């Protein structure tokens, strides 16, 4: 008993990182955007969750409900300076622990990120599980101000879209760890601001759409990838599921198409040595389900579905080969091919020199093989 009390009394003498922050005094930042205004002047935009963001909850009885989020921005030469400037305007303390999304402006990415992101890595409250993306077709502020569909928060909506794995998902830690090496190329998913096609809030002109991706070298954009190419990248990253492959379905390729849903996707990247130089074999496997068929061919016949699957294989093969060629042309290796060589053939790797991996990668032969199987035709067998 006495020991227990003594233990409690020693409490205040200990050091630790604790300080009380009441929830009502907290401005919870859920998205953070950085863009370049002019040379050396950055604009930092914060999306702060307002009390209206709690969907469904009544919140306060009576009175005007607060907006779901508040977008504040400031300009300055350094991130910390801007943050402080914004904090002076907000009645609450900024809490960055829940920053789900970091949005980089197009101009900043084109001009070079430089050390603008240093703050994110250095601040202890930042969590690196958040997503990072680049906005195209508008300013960062526009994106964060866009009212989302079906979610109360734009950032939540964006991270939901990212998590849905339709597009490319890039976590902060992944981005930064790629950026820290000389041989892995950092990638940024791209969010396009498009003219609003859906029934959204009145008078809203823009909607956000997860599009392609950009490849960076030395913090500068070197290459754009479109949505199709991103799908290939995803497949090579091991996230090939949930995609759709569409190939012509007629006996002779024509207007009508058949679409396959990918139920299961596997990939295997094996480095080999060919005369002291690395080479890669990429084999993709997958199981398909027919989601839609526009022509009336008997799917149950072996030859027919075999033909269609071959076409799908060919389609995928071409896509992968094209993307790898594009990456090699850009000397970009966002898929850690180099890492494999480093792990399996350290001697070769040392000899090649990791700083010159880009040049080596450009010449490295990559063999692609695709093996797809039709698992099911859906609920129906032959089209009616």
């Amino acid at each position, binding site marked *: 008993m006495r020991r*227990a*009390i003594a233990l*409690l009394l020693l409490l205040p003498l200990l050091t630790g990182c604790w300080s009380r922050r009441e*929830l009502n005094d907290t401005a919870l930042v859920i998205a953070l955007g950085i863009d370049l205004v002019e040379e050396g002047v950055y604009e930092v935009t914060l999306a702060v*969750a307002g*009390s209206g963001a709690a969907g469904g909850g009544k919140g306060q009885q009576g009175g005007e409900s607060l907006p779901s989020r508040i977008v504040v921005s400031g300009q300055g030469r350094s991130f910390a300076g801007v943050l402080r400037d914004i904090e002076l305007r907000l009645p609450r303390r900024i809490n960055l622990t829940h920053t789900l999304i970091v949005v980089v402006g197009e101009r900043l990415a084109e001009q070079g990120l430089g050390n603008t992101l240093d703050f994110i890595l250095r601040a202890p409250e930042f969590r690196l599980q958040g997503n990072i993306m680049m906005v195209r077709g508008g300013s960062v502020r526009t994106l964060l101000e866009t009212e989302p569909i079906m979610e109360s928060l734009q950032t939540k909506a964006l991270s939901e879209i990212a998590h849905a794995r339709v597009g490319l998902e890039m976590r902060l830690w992944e981005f930064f760890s790629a950026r820290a090496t000389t041989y892995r190329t950092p990638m940024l998913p791209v969010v396009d601001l498009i003219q609003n096609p859906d029934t959204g809030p009145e008078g809203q002109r823009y909607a956000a759409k997860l599009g392609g991706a950009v490849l960076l070298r030395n913090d500068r954009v070197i290459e754009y990838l479109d949505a199709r190419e991103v799908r290939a990248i995803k497949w090579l990253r091991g996230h090939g599921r949930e995609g759709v492959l569409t190939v012509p379905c007629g006996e002779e390729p024509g207007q009508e198409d058949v679409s396959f849903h990918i139920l299961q996707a596997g990939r295997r990247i094996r480095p080999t040595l060919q005369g002291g130089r690395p080479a890669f074999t990429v084999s993709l496997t997958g199981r398909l389900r027919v989601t839609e068929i526009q022509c009336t061919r008997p799917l149950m016949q072996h030859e027919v579905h075999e033909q269609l699957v071959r076409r799908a294989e060919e389609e995928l093969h071409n896509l992968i080969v094209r993307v790898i060629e594009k990456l090699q042309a850009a000397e970009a290796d966002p898929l850690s091919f180099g890492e494999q060589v480093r792990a399996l053939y350290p001697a070769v790797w040392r000899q090649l020199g990791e700083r010159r991996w880009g040049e080596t990668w450009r010449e490295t032969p990559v063999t692609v093989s695709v093996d797809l199987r039709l698992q099911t035709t859906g609920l129906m067998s032959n089209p009616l």
Partner: protein
Amino acid sequence: MQVDHQLIVQYLRRWQVARADELAAEVENCAGAGLSDQLQLALAAEKAYMPVSPALAENRAMVRTLMGYSADLMERTLYLGADRLPAALFCLDAMSERAQVMTILESLAVWGQDRKLPADRPDSLLTALEQMIPSVMVRGVGVLGEVLESLLAGDTVLFVEGLPSALIMPTDGPPGRQPDEPLTEPVVRGPKDGFTETVSDNVALIRRRMRDDRLRVERLTLGERSRTRVVLLYLMGIATPELVQEVRTRVGRIQIDAVLGSGYIEEMVEDDPLTIFPLLKVTERPDVVTAGLLEGKVALLVDGTPHAVLMPSTLVAEMQSAEDYYHRWPISSFVRSLRYLYLLIAFLGPSIYVAVTTFHQELIPTNLLITLIAAREGVPFPAVLEALMMELTMEALREAGVRLPKVVGQAVSIVGALVIGESAVQAGLVSPVMVIVVALTAISSFIIPLYAMSLAVRVLRFVLMILAGTFGFFGIVVGLMALFVHLSSLRSFGVPYLSPIVPPTGGDQRDVFVRAPWWAMRRRPQFMPAVDHPRGGQGNRPSRPSAGKRGGTP
């Protein structure tokens, strides 16, 4: 009155002790008036040494005087046998069962009319009377002190002219109630009888479950004034003699004027008098006591309390319900693990909420945090204060619910809960989430089967809440550390309070967080200092009837 005084003087003179002469002189001085309080107390102080007089009148006068002419003292004069030997029967109204007294009277006054009694030889007279009296037991007592004690316990006392001892017949049947369903420990499956205030009934309830001649029942009397009957129960051959002796010593050490409940004794025999945790298991259920006896524990029953005390007890025992052993074992195991989970919630719920929302917001999933922020919007108090206020209100409601008359109790607690819960949120004084946390905590604290344990958890919760409000998780962890240090230092009659978890004993784990099937519990708890461990055979596990054959045939 006057006559009585003379008789008292006469008696005291006959008694012939130095102190008696003094008293006699004083009684004589009173001449006519009633005896002073001091004198009555002085007489009472000597009662243990006063012999029963052969003169009937003196005995009657002494009993009346010592009882202070109490209104409920019943006296009946009768003449026994053919020789019409004068006798007097005493009993206390309602303390003794009237029907029994009537039977005794009947046989003495009516059936013994013609019998010749050897009035001149006290020994044979005693034997002859014993033969006449229809009572399960007749006991001759030679000291007035003992006579009074029996009388006060509800026994009937018979004085006979010329007999220097009184006959005591147990007729005690003070008002009591029938064994009822235990109010604080109800079960769905299992026996529905609980202890009553009558200790003899309680012993019977246990005896009925344990028809073993090795069940030892020892009677003690505690309380200098209350003379409360305390019964010590144990199973010889299972409970160690050392434990039984230790209980006897600790209980025997008690010097108190009255014992009005088992709680009096509990606090005076505990190993650590300063702890908040119940070191003895208090139960209303005879089946729990019986099961405890079978584990080698010693039970203490106190007259006037429908609660038995089982010792030694452990934290694990406090978390067990009798029902665990009656339901099927997978269900019991599930319920038991659930109970430990909710013990944690009852204990840590509000503290974790406070710590997480005011110190460690990064631990909350974003969507939940946004909801929490919205819920707390406009609440004027810090979370700690809010939690403390609500928890205190909850405790007040609970206490009021117990204290209020049954008729209004429920209504008030419902109205209180609704008004405070709903209106406090409406008025924006408290966030709705806090109400949920408080409600969950309250429900969790009722899952703890033994009330004493749940009280301890409730009180400690406040300490943790303050720690959480000032130091966050850090405070909670330090508080828990202090708690574990304290818990591991506790002993109950030498048994570590956390056993069998700490120190761990292998075989006992099957009755801690899970309840192993009965066929697998072949031994008594090993952490208990029991003499004899095996309790069941090897072959209790049933098997499917034809399992062996089916595999063999082609």
